[in-house]
């Protein structure tokens, strides 16, 4: 597998744009960007995870899952099912980023019953496929593990797929837009 080393800003921006290109509302795409950063800081090829999650009816699944996480965070539900959801890893990223932002203790409960607070996760990819549900636990004051200095490497094919999704949000250039859209000057040899 050929990989590319991105910065966190690149991971976030590309994930956000890919999500928008896949048809998700901008505010949701912003959250996908944050989720990608959270995953990339915990050993996951976040670009590939987002591209996978956006395939098929992925955008609808993400919307449903994000709504469930919102409800979980404010006591509107007790758990969020992960098992069987193709976007499960991205939902974990969304929950991880949300937990950090809101100071909540969100945790993954595995099929065998083990509960792993997201703040303590080092290898988010390792949570799958046994992750069963997300739960909200009482805050325990434990400090979150620091993020890795650079994101996990991205598969070049997934990177290209994300760029293709992101390109859907761009407008092809024309002679008119080149001349007018940026207010171009005529000469810079002064």
């Amino acid at each position, binding site marked *: 597998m050929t990989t590319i080393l991105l910065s966190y800003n*690149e991971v976030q921006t590309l994930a956000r744009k890919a999500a928008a290109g896949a048809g998700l509302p901008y505010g949701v795409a912003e959250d996908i960007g944050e989720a990608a950063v959270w995953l990339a800081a915990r050993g996951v090829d976040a670009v590939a995870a987002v591209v996978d999650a956006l395939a098929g009816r992925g955008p609808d699944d993400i919307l449903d899952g994000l709504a469930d996480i919102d*409800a979980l965070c404010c006591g509107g539900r007790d758990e969020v099912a992960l098992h069987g959801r193709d976007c499960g890893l991205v939902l974990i990223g969304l929950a991880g980023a949300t937990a950090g932002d809101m100071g909540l203790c969100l945790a993954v409960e595995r099929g065998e019953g083990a509960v792993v607070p997201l703040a303590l996760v080092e290898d988010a990819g390792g949570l799958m496929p046994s992750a069963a549900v997300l739960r909200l636990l009482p805050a325990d004051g434990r400090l979150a593990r620091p993020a890795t200095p650079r994101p996990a490497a991205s598969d070049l094919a997934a990177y290209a797929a994300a760029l293709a999704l992101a390109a859907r949000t761009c407008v092809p250039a024309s002679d008119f837009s080149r001349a007018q859209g940026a207010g171009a000057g005529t000469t810079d040899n002064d």
Partner: protein
Amino acid sequence: MTGPALDVTTEPALALRSPDVVMRLRRMGASFPTRLSFLRSLIRHLAASGAAVHRGVWRMDDEGFGEAVYTLQLGGHDYSLVAFSCPLSDDQRSDRVIAEAWDTSYLLYDGIPDAAEIGRLRANAPRQEAGRFGPRDLVLSRANKSVRFFEHVADSLAHGRQPDRARLGEVGYLLRTTAVYGNGKFGIADRCVLVGRGGLDGPFQAEMLTVWLIREFSHDLVEHVARCRAPETAVPLAPDLRRHIGVGNSTGLGMAPFLANHPVLLNNWVLARETALARVRSKPHLDAAALNRLADLWRQAARHLDQWSVEDGALAARIVRLRAEWAEAVAWIDPARLLATAFPVAALLDRGQFLSVDFQELLAALLIEMAGPENDDLAGGMAAVREGVLRPGMDLAALRALLHEHYGWALAIVFREPAETAQFWYVSQEKLEPRLGRRGAEPGAELELPLDIARQAQRLAADLAEVPETGTVAAFLARFPRHRHMVRRIQATAGAPYAEIRDNLLSDRCLPIDMLRCKLAFFGASKFDPRSDRWTRITLFQGAPTAGEITAGETDDCWLPVLP
């Protein structure tokens, strides 16, 4: 140092200007640099740390093509500007982002690069966006020569003469940057690397350091070319002229959406400036020293205005009016009168309300300058860690109240008028840069960027009106996920009075140049020179201390440069 954003509740009752006044495009487009501008903060950090610049590498041919490395230590870290100078034909020289080659290119490097690292950067920096960079690369930039002026200076120095002062005053720089990239672009280090690093953790400090070192390189480069042409007769730049040569910059639309996309950051910038102004305004008296300072700065501003010439007709007319108002209002600062006036700064500001917006903003910048270091603490609160966090548990009554309290300006816009949606913002596929199009006349409106803040506020209000107030944001967004961005924004900006540009960015009256000038003034730019309503040239660090002078700190020329 990065501190928390200012908590206005801990300040005594300061009379901050209303966001409805401050955050209008027309006024933002009249911004002047202040003591809180980012290049000023950098100069103070450099001076306080006794920064010494060491030119460790200088490999240039007689034409001035080659490479150089400048290193300094700041906050216990070494930083190096790695500079490359290459031949460039005139037909390739473009300030536009679509250019593919430049006269010079740069990397601000975290540490001191060895030969292998310089080799890596040599293979990538001249390619700019087409290159690939890594975690030790902090800022990527490039600059083109101001061809005729560079040649004039090189030729003058080679013949043992100083450059023509009038020409120097007219241009003001040898090199003009066309992009200064930070925060992870093209693989360079993320901004979080700089958190906690003394001297560089404030907004755009690494970028400002890069530009300051580019300026040093430009001085050295022109002197080098002159020496190589005529070793027997060449002279160096006179110190006062050297100081007056800054770095030019061409800035286009790419910068404009930044302010709309970073509302909390924008708030922190403006809140710091407005708090500084309010503190000065609240002074019950000015002593003789302050009045002398006021008079000195007034003269400084008058001379600066006299030396500020532009081709743009609209701005030229504004400058003419501003010069006249400034000259007439000098009577206001008569010491005898101001000494006897209670709250003299407030009196000056109130009188200014009857003159142009340009006058009002220059006066505000001057009064902040007059106060000197007493407001420097505010610079520490100008960064923003996060733009906003969604609070899904908020009840809809609270959200609706926030919307009506802080977005009344948006709800008042009549979007059924075609003029209010005449323009749309989009990203060009060619260089992935923001552009502005005319709706109906250009394709791509269906892909417009969400910079329609006011329209989003109205659409949210309409949908909120259809649901019971007893629900939560979480339930509302489950039904209306398209409002997620706007809801988060409203929640985030509730405590950030200056977060929103209180104008419609889709309107046919929206001039991007106003956003550009606002942002560039916060950088510390002067000599705004618009080339259209959507791109401008500016000068940075003109009048600022050079590397050899930095330990002496700031002068009044750091605020508004004046040709000596």
